[in-house]
């Protein structure tokens, strides 16, 4: 089933065109990777879907224009993780994560306390943030802050995750953990993920589908294997992408005796 359908999405700031007539759709079970060089308009797609920038064209969720959903209805279905976080005041990790339950109780007295607490605890557990629950977010490292907001997103429990650079600030261990976590999250039927990713290797390893952008225009879209071809990548990045990747990975190839090669 199609969850999200984006048609003729165009975003302009004055005379500047950020996104030019972008089309794609997202079905259940898909993980769509949005890739492309800096300034391609990747994050703008995320902001348009979350109603953060004015746009022309249409974004439909379950065949209904997202503009016609009420804010909390939309938030229960589509959850967004921002690229960067800056919190002004000393909120605790727990209270930030708990705000993820807002969409289920937009009124003061509505909502199910036990369900909320259970989801918050589960989200803290999943992201490994339980022991930070009472700590101020101002004392966290960039990666811990990123995981706090990821936990908020899991507490929000939407059907579609939209992640803008989800492993920004994360070291290798948490990069791997986060991507594995999202992959297992996606196994539940009815769900889908869109993520903006810089690391092409990660995008290729985890994405089922991809959208390659350059300067606001679509270079290629479709199944991941069809998008990540040397021809498309070289065009978008204006360099020999696979040659560079091979050089980079070549440094780590094991010798026959099992030790790693020295840098040449």
């Amino acid at each position: 089933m199609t969850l999200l359908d984006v048609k003729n999405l165009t975003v302009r700031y004055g005379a500047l065109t950020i996104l030019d007539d972008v089309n794609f759709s997202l079905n259940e079970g898909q993980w769509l990777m949005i890739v492309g060089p800096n300034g391609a308009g990747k994050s703008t797609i995320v902001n348009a879907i979350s109603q953060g920038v004015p746009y022309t064209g249409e974004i439909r969720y379950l065949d209904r224009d997202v503009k016609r959903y009420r804010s909390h209805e939309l938030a229960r279905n589509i959850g967004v993780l921002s690229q960067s976080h800056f919190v002004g005041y000393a909120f605790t990790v727990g209270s930030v994560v708990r705000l993820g339950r807002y969409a289920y109780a937009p009124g003061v007295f509505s909502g199910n306390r036990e369900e909320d607490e259970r989801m918050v605890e589960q989200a803290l557990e999943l992201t490994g943030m339980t022991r930070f629950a009472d700590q101020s977010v101002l004392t966290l490292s960039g990666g811990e802050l990123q995981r706090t907001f990821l936990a908020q997103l899991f507490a929000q429990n939407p059907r579609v995750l939209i992640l803008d650079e989800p492993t920004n600030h994360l070291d290798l261990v948490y990069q791997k953990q986060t991507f594995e976590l999202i992959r297992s999250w996606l196994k539940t039927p009815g769900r889908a993920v869109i993520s903006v990713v810089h690391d092409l290797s990660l995008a290729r390893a985890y994405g089922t589908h991809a959208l390659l952008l350059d300067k606001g225009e679509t270079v290629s879209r479709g199944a991941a294997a069809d998008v990540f071809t040397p021809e498309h990548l070289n065009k978008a990045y204006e360099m020999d992408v696979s040659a560079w990747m091979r050089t980079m990975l070549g440094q780590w190839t094991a010798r026959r005796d099992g030790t790693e090669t020295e840098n040449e």
Partner: protein
Amino acid sequence: MFSLATVATVFLCVCVGSVNLPLNETLRVIWNAIWGLPQPESMSVPIILSVRLPRVLCVALSGAALSICGGAMQGLLKNPLADGSTLGVSSGASLGAVIAIAFGITLPNVPFAGTVVMAMAFAFLSLLIILSLAYKIDYSLSTNTIILIGVIYSMFVSSILSLIITFASDHVKNITFWTMGSLLGASYQNALLLLVALTICGAVILRHTRELNAFAISEDNARHIGVPVRRVKLVLLIAVSALIGVCVSIGGTIGFVGLVTPHMVRMIVGPNHQRLLPASLFGGAIFLMLADLVARILLNPVELPIGVVTSFIGAILFVVIFYRSRRVRT
């Protein structure tokens, strides 16, 4: 705890003044007044009932209102320098009051009413101008637009203020005294008006504590978790401005309370608006009552403008608390 301290402060401030009154006598007079019992023949009765009590009530209510507005704006705009006057409505209200003073606009038989009514009318007018301007410039009502428009509007209004002061030189003393904030002529009607405004606007603000938490984390985050960002912003801005408009109309521009109290309270109860705003309400009342007490007794019989005291005490107190809390943390 906060509410008990507030009640205690009310009685302290009623008792202490240029004439000190014993606590039990004060309590008896107020008790008799509430239940309509006959009062003893004493000088203290008119002092308590027609001078001190209405004033202390007005001061407490103003302090509470200014502080809850400050707390709400600091969260909404995610800016620790914001307070209720950031939007520019209080400058508008001052302009109304100054026009009333300079041109001698009064209502027949009711002293001070001309200033109050004019200030309120101008506060409302300012709110309309500022919001429609913000809408025209930036439909999404972004934080920076709001702050900028507030600053520009305040500067524009203060230039008109200076112009009026230049031409109305014989009223300068009255105008200056008013702009520094004074609750000298406070009456029960004023207190009632403040109470009504505080109840209505305060209830609106307190209903939005979770939204304010989200805004204080970031506006994007508020949008992502499902807060109807633009509507909540508009509702809160109107509630804050209406309340500030009433405060300024009655007490003049009392500075610093709305800025400092939420910070001091935040250091005690944390940034969660569910606790921060109610605590600011009481904290602001206590702070302003004590400041008013100092203003009355420090250079007795000369009375200081309350704005001078709040800024003076507030600044020092703030530095002390800030310094100590920083040292504890590191």
